[in-house]
């Protein structure tokens, strides 16, 4: 195969492999998450006792997948059929489309290195709330509708701090290409701008609706949220899409702040980059799983107030601070290397201390006002 035809076929095969990759990885991530949560809750998690699920019940998810395929697809009476069926398709499509720009290795192990890679991730994620709105609206179920309302207000809100935090690696690199961002991380950005990494992680947890931000599908309040009415493989699509999104944000966090595929011996063996990237992503994913196992669920007003009154101002202040610190150091002649990183880290730490100070002052003030207004309550 030579020329254009060969190239087209190679691109298509690459895209197909890249689309399959998260699906395959997620099958084992679901098993891993269930095991970890089981251990956290003093259970064993899935085991192979009395089943054919393989060693350590490794293929439990495969068995679950086969079972779910045999279930009936129920479309409720009065549901809007077209929109109802389109919603789960859109969920998985959007979740996989992001993987087109994720660089698994230095060269070749990427479908396309867009020069707007980071922006592409944000733009594609903008489609995600619509699958939830479509599912919630078309089900004609009040729990589904409440779930959709919550999902939209939460995702639209937390998109802002997420994008603001994402701008900081872009600002330090001077490029939107994910490959360039990785190449610029001689020191992983989490050690250079820890505050940005922190707010990006929080915003991502909220964006994928993992506890403590699991409001859109809070099962003790609104059954299963926007996908209450779904059954069989359509339910499976939502479940799968959710886990792919968890993996995706872990990978993107690793790319932006943990150095992506960088690691020892990658220069000699390029495919090792994929191993490093997935190891880092697994680390971040497990942080999400630990949140999941350990955190209580917040109220929707707390979640939204936290976003608009804390995360958004934090993102703005962080962006301005990093920009000013970077430019100041550049004018002082420190534009490269570890000195620049150290300077940015100091700026970040000072900002972090200032934020903690302001928060404790505000908290003390609020407490004082409360006890003043209701004598005897706050003082206890």
């Amino acid at each position, binding site marked *: 195969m030579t020329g254009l035809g060969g190239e087209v076929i190679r691109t298509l095969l690459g895209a197909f492999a890249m689309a399959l990759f998260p699906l395959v990885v997620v099958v084992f991530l679901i098993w891993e998450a269930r095991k970890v949560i089981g251990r956290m809750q003093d259970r064993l998690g899935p085991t192979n006792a009395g089943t054919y699920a393989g060693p350590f019940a490794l293929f439990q998810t495969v068995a679950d997948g086969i079972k779910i395929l045999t279930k009936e697809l129920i479309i409720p009476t009065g549901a809007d059929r077209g929109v109802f069926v389109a919603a789960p398709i859109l969920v998985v499509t959007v979740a996989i489309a992001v993987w087109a720009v994720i660089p698994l290795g230095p060269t070749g192990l990427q479908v396309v290195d867009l020069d707007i890679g980071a*922006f592409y991730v*944000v733009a594609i994620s903008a489609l995600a709330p619509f699958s939830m709105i479509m599912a919630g609206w078309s089900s004609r179920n009040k729990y589904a*509708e409440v779930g959709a309302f919550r999902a939209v207000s939460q995702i639209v809100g937390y998109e802002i701090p997420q994008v603001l935090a994402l701008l900081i690696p872009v600002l330090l690199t001077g490029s939107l290409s994910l490959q360039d961002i990785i190449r610029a991380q001689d020191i992983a950005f989490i050690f250079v701008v820890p505050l940005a990494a922190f707010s990006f992680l929080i915003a991502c947890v909220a964006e994928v609706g993992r506890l403590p931000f699991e409001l859109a599908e809070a099962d003790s309040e609104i059954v299963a949220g926007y996908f209450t009415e779904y059954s069989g493989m359509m339910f499976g699509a939502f479940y799968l899409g959710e886990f792919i999104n968890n993996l995706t944000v872990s990978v993107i966090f690793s790319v932006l702040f943990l150095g992506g595929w960088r690691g020892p011996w990658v220069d000699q063996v390029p495919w090792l980059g994929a191993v490093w990237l997935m190891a880092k992503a697994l680390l971040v994913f497990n942080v999400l799983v630990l949140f999941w196992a350990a955190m209580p669920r917040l109220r929707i007003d707390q979640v939204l107030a936290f976003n608009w009154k804390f995360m958004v101002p934090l993102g703005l202040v962080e962006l301005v601070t990093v920009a000013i610190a970077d430019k100041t150091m550049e004018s002082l002649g420190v534009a490269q290397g570890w000195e620049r990183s150290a300077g940015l880290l100091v700026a970040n730490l000072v900002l972090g201390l200032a934020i903690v100070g302001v928060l404790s002052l505000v908290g003390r003030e609020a407490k004082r006002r409360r006890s003043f207004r209701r004598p005897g309550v706050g003082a206890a």
Partner: protein
Amino acid sequence: MFAGQVVFLIIACLMLGAAVRVVTSRRIFHAALWLIGSFFCVAVIYMLLESPFMAGIQLFIYIGGIAVLTVIAIMVTKGGMHPDSHTLGNGWSAAIVSISLFIVMAWTITQLGFPNEPGMPVAEEGLALLGAALVDPGGYLVPFEVVSVMLMVVLIGSLYLGRER
């Protein structure tokens, strides 16, 4: 080139079909969804024109911003999310406004005159050029800042309107 034309025709037909459905859908929520489909097709056309940044902007601003706002407006309007809510039957005035707007735009576009070259080479650092032009004092710095001031005014105005009194 031929394959590109076929893809363009298919996308353009899908886009126009979606746009027609926006107008003819009886449920306002369906109209909003078709609008998103139409926006998405525009983004695909930007991709065909080898301008991924414009495609991303199209997705981010129009679908992530305007369409979300539209849907939120429908959601918070009383009865807007009800499956049987119909669009308002004020078709004639809307038709007159949109047809006259279409005539004005079509006339403007035909007046422009397009270059006949099959396609200009894309600048290597197009994105950097765009960014530099926006914040360069010799470029579009003043309009850019004026727009940001206007957005600030809008933000404060909406806060004032939404304030609890």
